[in-house]
């Protein structure tokens, strides 16, 4: 048996391979013909996945395993030392498995999906760079390394949203994502500064060990957690910084699956879970997280009801599910949040990739009003999409059931009102997901006038879908609660890496069964409602220009949030910019700059006459200069 520490020591292999894949794919791009770049990228992520798996078993078998791997000294000055170090513990290993595992499947899928694209190699180079950055994010043992990965994934997100940069809209979407993330990052970096200012270190272990005896609710801790929360809100698309994520669907569908559903957007959840020791000491921030998470979950779910773009629906459902994770975080159920993160990574990646398969089959059509009846044409896609839908809706025994139920139970323990709101969000989720499923795959063909006959995707795309479907189905079994005779092994695995919020008491099994039955009945009801409306009555959403009643229009227009942001932030900013441009820039700065330029120009015009090209004159000036210095010398001595 190899020493666990020795194996953990080589954990730097994990980010190394995607980095190597990125370098090879970007530097030797022109030599990689055919699908080679895709194979290289998938292989590098695959190796990382295998190594992550080894690390996972080490962590599982050694209780409370936490290994800090110091690679080198990153920033080293007097009284200021930040090493470049990785932390291998249950939380980071879980995240590594998600990133590399789901990432691997999406890489393989992309080989088929992006086959026709002329920038195939660049796509895989950027995917690898993303995987590398994400691994840095989850493996970093201090906030700075985490932040490097954080910014790296932000960059890759920007690049890949705007991957088809020839369409102007897509660039705008990429820019929007970047700017929104920047707002969050500012908060995050302020939080890091404050952490360093308070504790004198950025290492997770050192900070958390210094928290012993710090009383709950102090101003500093609250400020730090609030700042970090702002960063998490930006990255994980929560109110008020969520509007970038639906627009981010401009990117290729595998990107939406990998970055904007499974991994990057969960970075905020990961970061808060990682900082759980800080957050349990900040009750105010925790309350805020609960409110924000619940509000986001409900708002996004309501908006998703009226979306007609297959990817937009999934995007809003992502926002909504992230809201559930935040709810769990705010309730102090950090392991539940990470568990939901894990299952969500499976089923949301599955849903996105299946949606990609539909889009692929319909030659780029994304409007569900122009789909329908695809069940017989895309059998595999239909079944895996159904699996994903069942999972996200929380139907037992699919994975989403276990993770969502855990959160609902936590909500009930905290406050029954929270439970009711969270459950209504879950019902909405169930309804709009089945709406999506029925509109896409059931009913009559509405795509006939628009596209040629759809075809099932190639095996390279279907196999990852099937694997993800299996994971979506079985992913919940790692954490069967005690209620069903399980041992909640996932929670116990994560327990050493997470702090425990005080004041939790478990429910009686009787109450749990009641809650479970109520929620299942309601879910079944909402599925039935969806079936009646969209299958039985064959309702199809009206065209965009349709005049709707006001309550309907507000939702269809996504509560005018984008417009409000435009009105309250963009417009004043533009006004300020143009005012400054007119007054300060034109009248002050331009004049100063022009004056300086003109001064040099005029001086040059005068001095230029000295340089008339006449050699005799030059010789004379030379003699005069020599004379001048001789005389100067005589005067001085």
């Amino acid at each position, binding site marked *: 048996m190899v020493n666990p520490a020795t194996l953990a020591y080589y954990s730097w292999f994990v980010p190394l391979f995607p980095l190597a894949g990125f370098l090879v794919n970007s530097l030797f791009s022109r030599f990689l013909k055919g699908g080679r770049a895709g194979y290289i990228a998938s292989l590098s992520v695959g190796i990382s996945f295998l190594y992550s798996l080894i690390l996972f078993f080490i962590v599982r078998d050694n209780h409370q395993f936490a290994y800090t791997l110091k690679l080198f000294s990153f920033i080293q000055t007097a009284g200021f030392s930040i090493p470049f170090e990785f932390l291998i513990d249950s939380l980071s290993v879980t995240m590594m498995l998600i990133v590399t595992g789901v990432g691997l499947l999406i890489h393989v899928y992309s080989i088929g999906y992006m086959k026709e694209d002329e920038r195939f190699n660049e796509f895989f180079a950027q995917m690898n760079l993303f995987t590398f950055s994400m691994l840095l994010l989850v493996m970093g043992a201090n906030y700075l390394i985490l932040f490097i990965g954080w910014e790296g994934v932000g960059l890759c997100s920007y690049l890949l949203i705007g991957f088809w940069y020839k369409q102007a809209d897509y660039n705008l979407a990429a820019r929007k994502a970047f700017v929104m993330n920047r707002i969050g990052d500012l908060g995050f970096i302020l939080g890091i500064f404050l952490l360093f200012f308070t504790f004198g270190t950025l290492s997770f272990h050192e900070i958390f060990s210094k928290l012993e005896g710090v009383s709950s609710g102090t101003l500093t801790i609250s400020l730090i957690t609030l700042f970090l929360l702002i960063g998490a809100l930006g990255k994980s698309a929560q109110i008020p910084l969520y509007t970038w994520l639906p627009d981010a669907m401009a990117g290729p569908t595998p990107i939406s699956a990998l970055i904007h559903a499974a991994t990057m957007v969960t970075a905020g959840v990961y970061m808060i879970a990682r900082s759980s020791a800080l957050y349990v000491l900040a009750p105010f921030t925790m309350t805020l997280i609960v409110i924000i998470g619940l509000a986001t979950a409900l708002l996004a779910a309501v908006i998703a009801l009226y979306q007609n773009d297959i990817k937009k629906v999934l995007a809003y459902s992502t926002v909504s599910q992230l809201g559930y994770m935040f709810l769990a975080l705010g309730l102090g159920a950090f392991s539940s949040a990470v568990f939901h993160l894990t299952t969500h990574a499976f089923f949301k990646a599955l849903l996105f990739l299946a949606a990609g398969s539909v889009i692929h089959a319909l030659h780029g059509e994304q409007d569900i009003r122009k789909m329908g009846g695809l069940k017989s044409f895309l059998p595999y896609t239909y079944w895996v999409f159904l699996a994903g839908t069942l999972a996200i809706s929380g139907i037992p025994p699919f994975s989403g059931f276990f993770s969502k139920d855990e959160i609902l139970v936590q909500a009930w323990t905290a406050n029954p009102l929270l439970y009711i709101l969270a459950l209504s969000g879950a019902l909405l989720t169930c309804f709009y997901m089945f709406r999506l499923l029925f509109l896409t795959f059931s009913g009559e063909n509405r795509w006939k006038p628009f596209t040629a006959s759809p075809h099932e995707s190639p095996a390279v795309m279907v196999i990852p879908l099937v694997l993800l479907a299996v994971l979506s189905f079985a992913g919940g079994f790692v954490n069967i609660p005690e209620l069903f005779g399980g041992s909640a092994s996932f929670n116990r695995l994560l327990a050493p890496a997470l702090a425990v919020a005080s004041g939790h008491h478990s429910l009686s099994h009787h109450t749990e069964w009641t809650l479970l039955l109520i929620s299942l009945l309601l879910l079944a009801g909402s599925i039935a409602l969806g079936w009646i409306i969209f299958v039985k009555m064959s309702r199809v959403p009206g065209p965009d220009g349709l005049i709707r009643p006001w309550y309907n229009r507000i939702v269809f227009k996504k509560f005018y949030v984008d417009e409000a942001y435009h009105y309250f932030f963009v417009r004043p900013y533009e006004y300020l910019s143009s005012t400054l441009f007119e007054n300060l820039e034109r009248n002050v700065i331009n004049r100063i700059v022009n004056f300086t330029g003109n001064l040099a120009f005029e001086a040059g015009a005068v001095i230029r006459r000295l*340089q*008339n*090209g*006449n*050699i*005799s004159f*030059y*010789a*004379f000036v030379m*003699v005069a200069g020599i004379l001048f210095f001789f005389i100067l010398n005589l005067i001085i001595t």
Partner: protein
Amino acid sequence: METVTTAIRIIPLEHYIILCAALFSIGVAGVLFRRNTIIILMCIELMLNSVNLLLTAFSAYHSDPAGQVFVFFIMVVAAAEVAVGLAILVMMKRNINSVDINLLNRLKW
């Protein structure tokens, strides 16, 4: 011969300094005075020779042979300079059919 070899003791060093300064100044004035490039080259030779003479005078006065070796090297440089300079002159005459220094007024930018 004895009288010649001791001449250095009779003639003071400042006489040589004045003579050489005069020759050098005449050379400089000539460079500024004339427009014919070949005369300018000659004036440069004159300046070099005045320096040679002064170096030799100091060398003899101090009984140090290094000064005379330097004169030797200056002659080498002067010969090389004249060879290149005259070649440029020939080319100039061939290209613009003149040796007027004022026509070479492109040395501006």
